[in-house]
């Protein structure tokens, strides 16, 4: 799925106006529930209701799972946000990932801050701004099997005329050995 997102980004498919980006007006219906630092199992077999990547007029966002995943061992997925020209990623906004209660997956917090340790790529046409952020998302799958890695990514993109705050629900199946 990560490959899908990257291929889409590279080929410009993310610019398609008919794609599935969620806009800010849809954020009200998005909520995550977790207890402590462990996202509780609701139903490990539940089909995810979100895709691993989404896009809007101003952005593309995707969730890239790790290549090799072993149950019980720490793993790192990546959350990738790309701003589409003339937008740039708002560096002041506290990007975050709120895990969904969909799997036996342990995260470091109920809300994972994504700004620390993120790789930032300057915009080609405005080098002072950032157009791509790739942030590590650390987690552990408790037991072998396929589970959806799912949650809501919050980020902001701006152009000189306006800023947008986006909350996009993403989900990707991961298989732990």
């Amino acid at each position, binding site marked *: 799925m990560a490959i899908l997102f990257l291929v889409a980004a590279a080929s410009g498919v993310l610019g398609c106006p008919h794609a599935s980006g969620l806009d800010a007006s849809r954020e009200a219906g998005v909520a995550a529930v977790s207890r402590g630092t462990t996202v509780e199992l609701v139903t490990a077999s539940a089909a995810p209701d979100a895709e691993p990547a989404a896009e809007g007029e101003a952005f593309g966002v995707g969730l890239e799972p790790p290549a090799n995943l072993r149950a019980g061992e720490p793993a790192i997925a990546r959350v990738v946000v790309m701003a589409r020209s003339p937008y740039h990623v708002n560096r*002041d906004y506290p990007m*975050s990932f709120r895990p969904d209660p969909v799997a036996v997956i342990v995260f470091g917090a109920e*809300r994972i801050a994504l700004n620390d340790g993120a790789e930032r790529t300057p915009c080609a046409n405005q080098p002072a701004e950032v157009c791509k952020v790739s942030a590590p998302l650390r987690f552990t799958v408790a037991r072998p099997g396929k589970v959806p890695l799912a949650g809501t990514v*919050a980020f*902001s993109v701006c152009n000189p*005329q*306006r*800023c947008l*705050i986006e909350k996009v629900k993403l989900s990707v199946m991961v298989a732990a050995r």
Partner: protein
Amino acid sequence: MRIPNVLVLLALASPAIAAEVGQPAPEFTLTDLDGKVHRLSDHKGKIVVLEWFNPSCPFVANSHTKGSLVGTPGRFEKTGVVWLAINSSAPGKQGHGVESSRAAAKRWSLDYPILLDASGAIGKAYGATNTPHIFVIGKDGKLAYKGAVDNSPDGERASPQGGVLVDYVTAALDDLAAGRPVHTAETKAYGCSVKYAH
């Protein structure tokens, strides 16, 4: 006496000097959405809060619907604090105009005046860079606080820096009410940029 043209040009070319904490707050005369004139000097001897405002900025929306501005103006107005919003969006820019401000005020139940500063002159005199951007003026007429609403740059209190939410505006107003120096008198504002003409 005629003022030499060169002086006029120099004055126009000089960058605006932002208001400084501890210095007298710049005087202004602005009209609200109903055309009523408001002067800072009308409120001499009172604590005044200036809230830079853009009805179309999502950070302003968050602050008024989920964030630290929910209920805050009303709570302090009851104690005699004067709360004024200022919209410095220029014509043609996001958030400009009476109707969008009026609609936002209704949507967010704001009952304090929203002043129009379409030229941006007052925004620049204060050094307002963001919406929201807060300036608190003490009873002595001096700027006592300028900066962010709080330390959660999402505007919804969900991401406080350092893990603990600090409502800078409430803290500043509490300090002033208690006769104390404002503990945190200046912070970095977050949110949308003010949509000045230039």
